[in-house]
């Protein structure tokens, strides 16, 4: 990333561009270089040729609207910070913009005070260099956050969300007391949560009634977890077993996947599970299926189609699809680099399906 921060400003109103170029370029403490574009296509071609820290985009523009630009920018430039600056007061557009992954949504400032807040906020955004980490405290990993809380002897609950999965870490007087995920508690849940590479988190008030299930010191706990994550990573790096002669990928190609499948197969009501790698050389792991091919085709086709539809409608990430028939219920969802499909009997309640599927996704995400 260049030393001098760079901002790309997109709006179809030339007066607005001139005004904001001057405001941002001359009045922000970091003195960023501000480039402007008066159309979505122009903005995207500038983004292709130069690196930027921040894109500030209007929503309402002719030809290519702001949501379209943001969808493409988020996909092509995942590390670029995105801000919407618009005159549209509409809750739905705000929701959709956040669903597409924008960092902030601003209504065009109308008072000096609002302008001051906007400028401060832009300065804060471009001064953050780190590309990874948990939203909520940017530039920090989850380990840093836990260390901070424990060192300051805090009592709180950290709620961490990764896709559809929500985990909680309970901290009491600077000690990790307990952790929970759907279907998992204590140290295994803590380890799973820490294996997540990205997500968002928020700090909730402490829960003094929580029963302590973790008795290791937080340093020991973090050390054990780091070791477990390293071991799991080295497992994954081992070359996979060759596929069968028929061209069908061999089921359960590594022991981590095997143990996950074994765990999932014990869950009440689960009829089958299939995990499909999304890379070119698709790997396939399954349990409970004699012939995984038809389900695998259904999973891939359905998720690919609805992902494309989501991009077209600008409605954010596809979170999950559930279906029910006379004999089966099924749930499919993207999960990390895999697509997961889980089958349930028709008699299973929607609530049970939702909870079980969440739990399976959280196991897989870790």
């Amino acid at each position: 990333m260049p030393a001098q921060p760079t901002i790309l400003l997109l709006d179809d109103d030339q007066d607005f561009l001139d005004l904001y170029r001057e405001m941002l370029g001359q009045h922000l403490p970091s003195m960023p270089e501000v480039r402007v574009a008066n159309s979505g296509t122009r903005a995207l071609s500038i983004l292709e040729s130069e690196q930027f820290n921040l894109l500030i985009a209007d929503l309402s523009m002719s030809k290519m609207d702001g949501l379209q630009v943001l969808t493409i920018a988020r996909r092509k430039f995942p590390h670029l910070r995105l801000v919407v600056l618009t005159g549209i007061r509409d809750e739905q557009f705000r929701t959709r913009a956040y669903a597409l992954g924008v960092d902030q949504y601003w209504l065009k400032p109308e008072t000096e005070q609002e302008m001051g807040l906007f400028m401060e906020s832009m300065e804060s955004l471009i001064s953050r260099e780190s590309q990874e980490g948990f939203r909520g405290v940017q530039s920090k990993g989850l380990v840093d956050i836990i260390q901070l809380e424990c060192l300051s002897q805090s009592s709180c609950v950290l709620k961490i969300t990764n896709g559809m999965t929500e985990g909680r870490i309970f901290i009491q007087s600077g000690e990790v007391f307990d952790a929970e995920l759907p279907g998992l508690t204590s140290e295994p849940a803590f380890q799973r949560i820490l294996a997540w590479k990205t997500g968002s988190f928020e700090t909730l008030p402490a829960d003094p009634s929580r029963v302590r299930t973790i008795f290791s010191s937080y340093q020991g706990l973090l050390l054990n977890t780091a070791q477990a994550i390293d071991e799991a990573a080295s497992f994954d790096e081992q070359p996979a077993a060759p596929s069968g002669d028929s061209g069908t990928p061999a089921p359960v190609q590594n022991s981590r996947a095997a143990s996950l499948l074994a765990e999932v197969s014990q869950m009440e009501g689960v009829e089958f599970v299939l995990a499909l790698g999304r890379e070119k050389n698709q790997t396939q792991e399954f349990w409970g299926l004699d012939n995984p091919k038809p389900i695998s085709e259904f999973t891939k086709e359905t998720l690919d189609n609805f992902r494309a539809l989501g991009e077209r409608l600008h409605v954010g990430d596809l979170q999950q699809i559930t279906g029910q028939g006379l004999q089966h219920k099924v749930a499919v969802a993207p999960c990390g680099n895999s697509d997961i499909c889980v089958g349930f009997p028709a008699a299973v309640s929607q609530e049970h399906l939702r909870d079980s599927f969440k739990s399976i996704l959280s196991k897989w995400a870790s």
Partner: protein
Amino acid sequence: MGILSRLFKTAEPGLVHLPSGSFTVDKEGATITSTLPQSFPSGHRDAISQQVMASFRAARRAHMPLNEIVIQYSALKLLARELGEGAIVFLMPQSLNQQSAVKIKKSP
């Protein structure tokens, strides 16, 4: 010609508001009835119905026929129910407030 093309220039697609509503389609995905406003582009509606019908077909091919599919995006929920040889599709835009309300309700 220049004047004519200016006079009859087709409207450029603007920012599309996602409506709440429903529509029914036949087995080919052609719309039969709709409660969606006319401002919602028919292209979007057709794209939804085509994907929905394709999913019902894909499920049948996988020997797992489905009569209802719920598709959850961050900002939109689609519910499609099979009706004879067609389907009815409901569009339910999700708002941030709605999502937080659900989460608050669920917490103990």
